[in-house]
């Protein structure tokens, strides 16, 4: 069975994909749907939702449109989620690959280094990094990346460690391929599916982390992000629930969708969990 058919068999994964498609569409179309800055006050402040059709999700303290904020927030959340994950995956794959392939002392040193990062609670570390380098989209993205790579490194190390003793890798050594080439062309392509699955879940975690950072007041002040919207409105939860409920739902749904996709990918890429032939 092909990968896509296996994926399509998982209803949850399809729903996840559909939701994510909507989120991505909204993110891409935000400037068309809501021309102008989401920061601009456009209507009466604290307009409740569902009252004015022009502002279906209401407005905030400064009369800014919540719907516009959510559309633009999708851009930021996805951007931070994807880029931080990409950076974390690059770091994690590099360190994990070197440790797993070369083993011995290289492995010891790199894994000890990884342990340093794992011993510090990830969220606390992210808070410190963002605070120290002052909160902006770059520092937030990098901070999330810096705290997320160790699990990738461990995963990749494990994969490389087991794959490097596999016969096709030995065969590549025997025919005279060099180490870096073997890592890139023989091992990595075979380790990619768990990495993709992990990465998809990391995107979800990164979005959550960004929102938590924003909650503590460590968001980028120039970017309308969901976390920022909640952070700014959370104290008004009882006065103006819509300010934080809608972005909260946006996070929940997006993270849920990405998790569903991750699970779908996992099932589709590891068909051994289903029945085997023979």
């Amino acid at each position, binding site marked *: 069975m092909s990968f896509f058919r296996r994926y399509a068999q998982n209803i949850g994964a399809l729903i996840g994909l559909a939701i994510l498609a909507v989120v991505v569409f909204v993110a891409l179309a935000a400037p068309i749907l809501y021309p102008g800055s989401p920061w601009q006050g456009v209507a009466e402040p604290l307009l409740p939702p569902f009252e004015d059709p022009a502002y279906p999700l209401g407005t905030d303290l400064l009369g800014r449109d919540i719907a516009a904020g959510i559309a633009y927030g999708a851009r930021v959340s996805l951007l931070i989620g994807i880029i931080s994950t990409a950076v974390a995956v690059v770091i994690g794959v590099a360190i994990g690959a070197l440790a797993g392939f070369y083993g011995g002392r290289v492995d010891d040193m790199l894994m000890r280094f990884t342990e340093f990062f794992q011993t510090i609670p990830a969220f606390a570390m992210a808070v410190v990094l963002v605070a120290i380098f002052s909160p902006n989209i770059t520092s937030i993205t990098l901070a999330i990346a810096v705290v997320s790579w160790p699990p990738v490194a461990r995963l990749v190390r494990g994969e490389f460690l087991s794959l490097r003793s596999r016969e*096709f890798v030995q*065969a590549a*050594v*025997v025919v005279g391929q060099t180490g870096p080439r073997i890592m890139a062309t023989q091992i990595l392509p075979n380790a990619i599916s768990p990495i993709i699955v992990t990465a998809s879940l990391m995107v979800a975690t990164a979005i959550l982390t960004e929102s938590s950072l924003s909650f503590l007041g460590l968001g980028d002040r120039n970017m309308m992000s969901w976390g920022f919207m909640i952070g700014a409105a959370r104290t008004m939860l009882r006065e103006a629930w819509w300010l934080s409920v809608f972005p909260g739902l946006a996070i929940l749904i997006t993270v849920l969708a990405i998790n569903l996709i991750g699970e779908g990918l996992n099932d589709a890429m590891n068909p051994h969990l289903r029945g085997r032939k023979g």
Partner: protein
Amino acid sequence: MNATTPLLQVENLSIELPAGLDRKYAVENLSYTLNAGEILCVVGESGSGKSMTANAIMGLLPSYLKPSSGRILLKGRDLLAMSEAELARERGRTVSMIFQEPLSALNPLMTVGDQIAEVMLVHGEGDAASREQRVLELLDYVGLPDPASLRHSYPFRLSGGQRQRVMIAMALALEPAMLIADEPTTALDVTTQAQILDLIRRIQRAKGMGVLFITHDFGVVADIADKVVVMEKGLVVEQGTADEVLNRPKHPYTRRLIAAVPHPDENATRADADGDVLLEVRGLRKTYRSGGGLFTRPRIVKAVDDVSFTLRRGETLGVVGESGSGKSTLGRCILKLTDVDGGQILYRGKDIVPLSQAAFRPLRRHLQMVFQDPFASLNPRQTIGRILTDGPVANGMPLAEAEKKARELLSLVGLDPSAYDRYPHEFSGGQRQRVGIARALALDPELLVADESVSALDVSVQAQVLDLLQDLQKKLNIAVIFITHDLRVAAEVCDKIAVMYRGAIVEFGPPGEVFNAPRHAYTQQLIAAIPGRHWNPRAAVA
């Protein structure tokens, strides 16, 4: 049960496969009979459906497989009609089962004593004290040493043969009328296999059990079977008494299988190779260390212990040994896939031991390897073409030329040129092993190390690949080091045989000599343990 009721009757059993596979039934219209006191061997190659019947009897089929028709009568009662709870009462009491891989078949977190006692516990037999007593009896009965302390051991502490004995003890706990043995010796070394087969036969005789024995090895069949069922692709192609099927096979498939069983041609003599000395190994040593710390000494295993031999161009050296004998390590040392602790490996007079990996890389093309597992040795993410051209390209050959050569090689090893753009998973095991051979040959090597290169293959495929190897070797005049656990195979294809035991070569000589006049006690033991030694398959199909 009256005397005429067979112990087990399988009648017209069909098990449907899920849609979309290459055939509709896992087994189709299967019928056979097992009487008390008989050993019935079900023999076939992988995918023949031979294990499926065993699982169907035990009600252990995976959830996506359901018997679609037929009956399985155990002492006259249809197992397929029983509820899960009823079935659970029969399992372990009337019919027991032992499996191929004894390590994974035992719960790693339970002592072996507890696992044996559990059979009695769940069937409500005896009290704690009597069960304990019975465990000790059983452990002793299956020939395990020191039952009193062994029952507190965890499975990982036991050797493969001991684990299988524990499995057997567990199966015997309630003295069932029937034992199903699903390839119980396949994962074991040949000497251990002989002991386990011996044990099963002894118990079966003593208890008068009916044994359903599933195997792929005709040698094993020859050793223990009373009756034989031969299966191919879910169908029974032939059944009868052991004598009929082994010595007078009628069905062409059976004949083909029997013809392919490796059997040393004891009278064949080979001309001594007189080519140049290609490889000379002198006093090679390799030790593995494990564990060890501040207070404990590391465990040291001498994997290769002072091994020396000479290999000439065009010559085939068989290295034979059981697991842990160091035979594979030897191969890896020669190819510098692992470090060496001492000694020399002279390739055309040049010692390659002190060379760095980078310095050795240009020489690699002369020394190639064919691996054991046709599934693991090909990168599943690369096309066959890519697999075959990687080596030449890494050695500086232009891509176009490498491609041309790869296509030539495909036809040389008997594959269709269209294979070039396909992926490994589209091929069978035998075809993949041909690709593996082609990959090794792509670099025009002078020496080929074949490490258990045919042991993962079905016997008929194994024969074909062996033929191919021999054929190519003659054609290309390359030297081969043929590493195998199977003395029969080695004897069939090698010019010289080295028997390894605990890292050292204990016997060295031409196959005839080794076979007919083994000097070392271990060699003698090894030869004695060859399954089906007294049966001549060549004669059966002559």
